[in-house]
């Protein structure tokens, strides 16, 4: 469990419109070790989902990955080409989406699509593949998988469907799972069940997880490290304790402060004013400066570079919160 599983360097994904090309992901870099759980946190439009899709080449026009490298077990996925990527997806890297009903094929039974996911990558007899599917469904907590396997996706509840999606992702024992808001649409008690299963499975199989979410609470309970995205950039990344207990970027601090549980009941919440800039209207300099209470003239002139702190924590800010204490 040592070494580097994934190294992302300067990944940049733009969307081409008539008026020009706008960067949804604007030069993100991070590394992951085998078995690690990385929380990728951001608000809608921050580029977190596009980042996840860019890693495995699932960006369709008008989007385009234009710069950077995605080194997975030493190979650059950007230069691999579509046929090789197809072989890799679902086998070595799997993806789980928020909307499991859209991710599953409605006219195929669960068995048909899961067996296909196995036989696409390996020459396995049908009966053996079915056995593996039943075992995978049981593993994610679906009761009587022998009968449920021949049902269609609409016959499952939302939580059960997400389990099917997770079981499908796990079928080929991937090294990395990219999960995009997989529990956001679920109720809290079901979310707890799914988180419990993902945590156990990741630990047992040594699968690394990129957990894309807007919910810092979920990340806190699940992740080893966390990356906070704002307007296409990772503005802060580091170990979960470092970032949540001693954030250096004012946006991270603002997100943490606005959580209701961090404020006395009935008090005014400490809010971040304003809204995130749209893709086409990112301000020059630091994209957060218009909402930032620490902003100074320099922030409007120059985009802040990455500052490396101790313990692998790094941030992009001209005026970081000193020592991570409250300003």
């Amino acid at each position, binding site marked *: 469990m040592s070494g580097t599983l994934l190294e992302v360097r300067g990944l940049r994904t733009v969307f081409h419109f008539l008026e020009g090309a706008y960067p949804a992901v604007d030069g993100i870099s991070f590394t992951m070790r085998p078995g690690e759980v990385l929380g990728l946190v951001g608000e*809608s439009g921050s580029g977190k989902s596009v980042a996840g899709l860019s890693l495995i080449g699932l960006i369709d026009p008008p989007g385009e990955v234009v710069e950077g490298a995605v080194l997975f077990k030493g190979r650059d996925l950007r230069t691999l080409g579509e046929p090789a990527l197809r072989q890799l997806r679902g086998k070595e890297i799997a993806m789980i989406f928020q909307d499991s009903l859209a991710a599953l094929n409605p006219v195929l039974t669960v068995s048909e699509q899961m067996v296909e996911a196995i036989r696409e990558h390996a020459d396995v007899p049908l009966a053996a593949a079915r056995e593996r599917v039943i075992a995978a469904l049981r593993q994610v907590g679906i009761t009587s998988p022998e009968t449920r396997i021949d049902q269609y996706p609409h016959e499952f509840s939302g939580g059960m469907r997400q389990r099917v999606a997770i079981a499908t992702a796990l079928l080929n024992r991937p090294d990395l799972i990219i999960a995009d808001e997989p529990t956001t649409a679920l109720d*809290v008690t079901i979310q707890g069940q799914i988180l419990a299963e993902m945590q156990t499975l990741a630990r047992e199989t040594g699968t690394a997880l990129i957990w894309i979410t807007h919910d810092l*609470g979920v990340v806190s309970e699940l992740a080893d490290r966390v990356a906070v995205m704002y307007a296409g950039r990772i503005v802060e990344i580091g170990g979960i304790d470092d970032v949540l207990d001693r954030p250096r970027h004012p946006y991270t601090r*603002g997100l943490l402060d*606005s*959580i*209701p549980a961090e404020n006395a009941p009935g008090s*005014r919440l*400490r*809010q971040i004013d304003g809204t995130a800039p749209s893709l086409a209207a990112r301000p020059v300099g630091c994209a957060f400066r218009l909402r930032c209470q620490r902003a100074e003239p320099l922030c409007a002139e120059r985009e802040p570079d990455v500052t490396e702190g101790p313990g692998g924590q790094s941030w992009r800010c001209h005026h970081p919160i000193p020592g991570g204490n409250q300003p």
Partner: protein
Amino acid sequence: MTATPTEAAAIIGLEGLSRDFQRPPVLAERLLALLGRKALPPVLKAVTDVDLAIRRGEVLGLVGESGCGKSTLGRMVSGILPPTRGRVTFDGHAVATLAGRDKLAYVLGVQMIFQDPYASLNPRQKVGDIIAEPLKVHHMAAGRREVVERVDRALAEVGLDPSYKERYPHQFSGGQRQRIGIARAFIVNPRFLVCDEPIAALDVSIQAQVINLFMDLRDRHGLTYLFISHDLSVVRHIADRVAIMYLGRLVEIAPAAELFARPAHPYTRALLAEIPSIKRRRRKFQPVQGELPSPLDPPPGCAFHPRCPFAIDRCRKERPALQPIAANRQSACHLNDQI
């Protein structure tokens, strides 16, 4: 039309409020019925026997998982949906019997804020017209100038620039759209707002802004809220009292501080344990098992018993009534005094 003292303190009262849904029978069922066979579509009991008094000036948080009936309850309170059984009272008078000015006072006095700020605004209307519509429908403004003045005031009240009224909904972010929805509800000077998951569709940093807006409006105008949410941490922040709903029935009612400090019902405990928290790291999850049962086929006895770690034989046979367990607290569990 006299109200008892306890009712007088309540702005909204719910008495045995129930709502069933039943789809129309399909052809085969109609034919079988003609032949004298019993083949009617199943009845879905969305809300069953809810008794609740919402006091003037309080924020009552209504919490439950999807499908538990909390939105159906909210829609009955706001008068959008008639109850199947039971009644809603407004200032002590049954809503169904109101007429004339009293009915108008209820219709205007109780307004609703919806979850989806994208679906609840007409995309082809300008924001100014959307907000002015209630004034026009109810002939509440003396002329064009008063309409404009009141729209401007409503926009200012929710923190939007009056110049925005010339724009269309698609030109706004989700948070701003929710503010527009609040302004539309607010323009008729309501006393009571039913807020159905009003921040669930918003981004984290925007949620805090809208929660603050709700609290400011309440402070300024002495509003009463029925605040429906699945998010316990939001309800903990904003609510004075909390009602927990499971499969169409209330299972616990308590002042917010007490509910979060000492939850009584096993379902409330399970919900509280699952609130994600930035204080917990690399948690060992031990979630409550099972899923919400189908309201078409509810389990016998206590509806929560198949998922309850404390369930005993009695829970499988006999439904526990919602009963007082302390001052201002009620819980529906056979083991109220034991666990």
